[in-house]
């Protein structure tokens, strides 16, 4: 059984505890009541993560004030290097509606398991990099999973998926 064969569990059944980029404690129940968009990434990531953050910033700009009702979160897969302060500095370059979440590795592993997402650390050139699930997960306001926007998916397909959870 691999992660991609399964769908994320409903938000109400998720059980991880993280810290947001402002240093405040976070629990998934805080997402309930509003539609939610989540992806996994890390700030040492030079290509995929800024690309996804730019895509999300563009989608939010396209949706305008309507998107204010969305929860939008980046969950770090690299808690050793992504402190709340680092996430705050990094995210200040993108749409301010995006919230960064980090925390203990054990809690991030729980989060990935709940999303059926995968991340792994790979040694690289004296340091390491992370392979990770690249899609953007969408959930309805009541917390059930609705769809994934694939990495770099054309906005003509992405925007309707987001509109769907906003209605």
């Amino acid at each position, binding site marked *: 059984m691999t992660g991609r064969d399964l769908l994320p569990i409903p938000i109400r059944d998720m059980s991880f505890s993280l810290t947001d980029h402002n240093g405040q404690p976070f629990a998934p129940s805080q997402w309930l009541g509003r539609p939610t968009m989540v992806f996994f990434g890390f700030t040492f990531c*030079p290509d995929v993560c800024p690309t996804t953050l730019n895509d999300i910033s563009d989608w939010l700009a396209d949706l305008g004030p309507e998107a204010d009702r969305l929860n939008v979160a980046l969950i770090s897969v690299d808690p050793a290097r992504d402190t709340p302060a680092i996430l705050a500095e990094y995210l200040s*370059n993108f749409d301010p509606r995006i919230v960064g979440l980090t925390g203990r590795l054990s809690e991030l592993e729980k989060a990935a398991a709940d999303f059926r997402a995968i991340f792994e650390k790979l040694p690289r050139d004296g340091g390491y990099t992370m392979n990770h699930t690249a899609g953007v997960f969408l959930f309805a306001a009541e917390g059930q999973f609705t769809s994934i926007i694939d990495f770099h998916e054309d906005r003509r397909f992405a925007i309707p998926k987001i509109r769907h959870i906003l209605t």
Partner: protein
Amino acid sequence: MKRLILATLVVFAAMPALACETVRVGDIEVEHAWSRATIGADRPGVVYLSIRNTGSTDDALIGVATPIAGMPMLHETVVSDGIASMPHTMSMPVPAGQTAALAPGGFHGMLMGLTLALKKGDSFPLTLTFETAGDLTVTVDVLGMGAKEAECPDAQP
């Protein structure tokens, strides 16, 4: 060493228009070289640019070098079964008569071991090695961390 590199950066920073110019070697034309600002020098930098092969023989980009990074290399972002990875790549094909790009979400120059943090508004030299055409040096403009494309008047959106 660091002072020398800084001095180079200052010199290049005084000529910001250069990255928008087209640089040629043999049949190869390179333009729109840009990078993103980094948080500190520990994080890798990235380089994107556009390459056009105006000739009738295929070529390939086989190496990148810059004085501001100890380990510059070519990477390709690959998303397989929804999982993103970033393998090294030995060469990027630049077929005859075609344009190939280091672009967000695909092939990119990865600058490991930066000697200093990249700041918006800086520029640095980058030498590209092509299998057939040889070496060519371009100026790379450092844009903001949220930049999506080169900031040139004629850049493709």
